[in-house]
């Protein structure tokens, strides 16, 4: 199937990854729809040795003296440099889905280990992912699993497991109630005794286990019989995970969340419910495989439909990482600028602090990202990025050189505007906006007319301003 246009390829790379420069998009588009989707999804075949070595050298995560917010920078650095963008995107999806915050983790590096777990199970069977999350030390702390004990169950995890992580209070298609308050209480009992052991091990090494390890304290587990969804047995936590992962309500709920994140928000229309059912079948027919569900969604006609184009609002991570990847930002050869802190504080100002979602329901996507303060943060991130001229500024990290911008600067103002709109989207704008952007290039600093010249001085003075302006367009905020 060689049926992928440049715009299709850019759409796919923005959604399944974080966008990229034209060469990357062209190479992806040349594979055709299924080939391109497969390349992104079957990422195990792509070697990450170079990135792993760079990250290890850059971040002293394994040592004491772990600096403030290093984990934020570590993840951003991965997202910016990874040759497997879908791996990071899917991990980000699960981070938002199983929203856990280090604000309550007894030791914040447990959150880094949770992200490793999400990445490891990102495309496996949903049952396996769910069990790994239920046994994750950060989650056990976050939703009080560690203090859920026989005789005195704690309902926190049992409730959110159903409401937010798997099926929702009501079925996404039928609207029927998915579970009762009694189910919450009984499921809490099934997870009693699940806890964590403190090994005392410090530091962070992705190849070694973390400080806290899952364990079941048999003496605190309620082994009596429980009635869950009308069935009675001596259910364990593992049993509950299997039962929930096999429910059609769970399949429907996951499809809806994946669509909202990757394709477009689904309505309650009959047509959209039919879409949910079709992809819920994929989940049920493929042994709950997230990989096959994701493959079906990303290669679907819905995904490439007009309705899906620019139908989402860029998250702060998508905006920041996407801008850096697309503009071919200079990190310096040793990559040290990847660590510069202010770039990641921009994400905080835009409303997204990784490892610290606002609550267990995750970030509010799409228009939830938008208000006057977060928009100013977006505009100012663009300005700071594009006006950083050298790769070693005193305060700021990544910079964009005149040479990088020269690639997209054409002989005429109009062609230059078209070229940069194409790079940063491709974004389509009305003719008035096109004319205004063109006129900006043909205006001197005093506001008077000045013929456009493709030279270093103009690039430095005007192309930077143009990129800032394009990144301030409402269209640029969409994904």
């Amino acid at each position, binding site marked *: 199937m060689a049926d992928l246009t440049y715009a299709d390829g850019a759409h796919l790379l923005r959604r399944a990854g974080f966008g990229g420069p034209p060469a990357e998009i062209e190479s992806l588009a040349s594979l055709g729809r299924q080939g391109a989707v497969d390349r992104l999804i079957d990422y195990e075949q792509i070697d990450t040795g170079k990135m792993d070595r760079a990250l290890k050298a850059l971040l002293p995560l394994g040592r004491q003296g772990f600096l403030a917010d290093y984990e934020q920078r570590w993840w951003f650095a991965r997202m910016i440099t990874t040759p497997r963008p879908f791996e990071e995107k899917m991990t980000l999806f699960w981070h938002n889905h199983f929203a856990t915050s280090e604000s309550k983790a007894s030791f914040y590096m447990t959150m880094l280990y949770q992200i490793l777990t999400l990445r490891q199970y990102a495309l496996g069977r949903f049952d396996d992912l769910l069990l790994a999350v239920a046994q994750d030390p950060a989650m056990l702390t976050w939703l009080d699993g560690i203090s859920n004990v026989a005789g005195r169950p704690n309902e926190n995890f049992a409730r959110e497991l159903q409401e937010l992580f798997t099926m929702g209070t009501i079925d996404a298609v039928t609207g029927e109630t998915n579970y009762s308050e009694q189910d919450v209480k009984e499921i809490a009992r099934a997870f009693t005794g699940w806890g964590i052991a403190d090994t005392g091990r410090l530091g962070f090494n992705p190849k070694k286990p973390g400080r806290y390890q899952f364990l079941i304290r048999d003496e605190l587990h309620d082994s009596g019989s429980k009635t869950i969804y009308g069935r009675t047995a001596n259910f364990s936590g593992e049993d509950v995970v299997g039962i929930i992962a096999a429910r059609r309500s769970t399949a429907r709920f996951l499809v809806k969340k994946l669509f909202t994140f990757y394709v477009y928000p689904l309505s309650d229309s009959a047509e959209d419910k039919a879409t949910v059912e079709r992809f819920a079948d994929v989940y049920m027919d493929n042994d709950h495989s997230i990989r096959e569900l994701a493959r079906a969604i990303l290669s679907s006609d819905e995904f490439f439909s007009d309705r899906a184009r620019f139908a989402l609002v860029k998250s702060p991570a998508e905006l920041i990482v996407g801008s850096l990847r697309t503009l071919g930002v200079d990190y310096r050869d040793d990559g040290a600028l990847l660590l510069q802190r202010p770039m990641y504080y921009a994400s905080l100002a835009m409303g997204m602090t990784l490892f610290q979602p606002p609550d267990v329901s995750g970030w509010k996507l799409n228009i939830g990202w938008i208000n006057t303060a977060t928009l100013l943060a977006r505009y100012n991130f663009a300005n700071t990025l594009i006006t950083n001229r050298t790769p070693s500024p005193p305060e700021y990290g990544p910079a964009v050189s005149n040479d990088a911008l020269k690639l997209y600067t054409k002989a005429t103002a109009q062609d230059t505007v078209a070229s940069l709109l194409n790079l940063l989207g491709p974004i389509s704008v009305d003719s008035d906006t096109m004319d205004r952007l063109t006129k900006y290039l043909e205006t001197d600093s005093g506001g008077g007319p000045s013929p456009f010249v493709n030279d270093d001085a103009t690039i*430095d003075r005007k192309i930077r301003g143009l990129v800032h302006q394009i990144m301030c367009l409402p269209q640029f905020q969409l994904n």
Partner: protein
Amino acid sequence: MPTRREFIKRAAGAATVGLIIPRSLLQARPYSAAAAANRRILVVLQFIGGNDGLNTVIPYSDDQYHRLRPTLGFKEGDLKDDQGRSTIISDRFGLHPSLTKIKDLYDQGRVAIVQGVGYPNPSDSHFTSSDIWHTGNPGLPTGNGWLGRYADLALADQTGLQIVAETFTIPRSLSADKAIAVSFSSSTLTSYAFQTDPQYPADRESQVGLFSANNSSMFPAGSFLDTISRDGIDALRSADEIAKAIDGYSSTVAYPSGNSLADAFKVVVEIVSGVPEANLLYLLLSDFDTHAQQADRHRSLLSEFGDAVKAFYDDLSVHGLADNVVMMQWSEFGRRPEENGSAGTDHGAASSIFVIGNPVKGGLYGDEPSLAPGDLDPVGNPRFTVDFRAVYATVLDRWLNFDSRLVLGGEFPALDFLA
């Protein structure tokens, strides 16, 4: 640059600010710093996660309370602060020992406590119950927020649209048809400005003009592009006004450090003292979901609350605005009377809330729900005695002078905590 400590601190008990101001503010107008004498400011403070009302306003003489709270309960003798000052407010109730500063305000008659506030068939979900409070609709919590509906109706005949605000996410209470967001947080306020290339200051004017024109394009009503472009214009226009307000602010009041709610209250005073039209503000304080090891966290949250409110009212007095502000606090539910096995409490239902300010008639309102076994609901939660919409109605009818029936779609008898 925040340190890690501050980073974590901000997430635990993070507080943010939002406000509604008339769009006329954002047009060119003569700037008047004089606050109108009859100005009526409403500040809404949401405790996110479900505040334990029973350990906030404590029924210390109720045997049922002590039966249900064998380890977390406060005995009469516990109701005093570090210096031994009592926080008892009546022969039945006392405030949490960390609320000394709220007790001082209570003694001055500036604190109303409404007990038993809730609604029928309470939801145990944070999200459903919050939506019910935000929309003022226990039947079907959809549509705009109650404050957003008020803003649309009451402020619509002023110039154009109204402004709604919050940091990071707009609280549902403020969602409206005609309103657009202006938002702040104490941590991002200094960068609330539209920046351009510092190397070419002469180019700024063209850039600002271009930005305005591009974001003034017409987009389909209700589309993401429509919202984003309008918010973009409001961001640009409000930035100068806000900067002016912040620059003009000074105060002799020392706000407590390391207290994110106090930082947020300070922003509120900066805004209301500098922007005469800013009369509807919204704050959030998170981390009240105390399922486990509740005692320390709850103490620290309430102490943060009390210290922040004290500084806020001191600062309002300095700025001559203390008679112009009513602050209403709420949370999506209280916590279950019976403590759990984790030294915490699970999701509850009806609970107590605070309404604070000089215009408030202090005292206890509403009936404390019975905690007797036969009186609790099947989940084990107290049954409500005051519909939360009666609290909204009181604020709308008696403070904002607006017919609450138009906002709430029904009649709810006002309580007497406002005249």
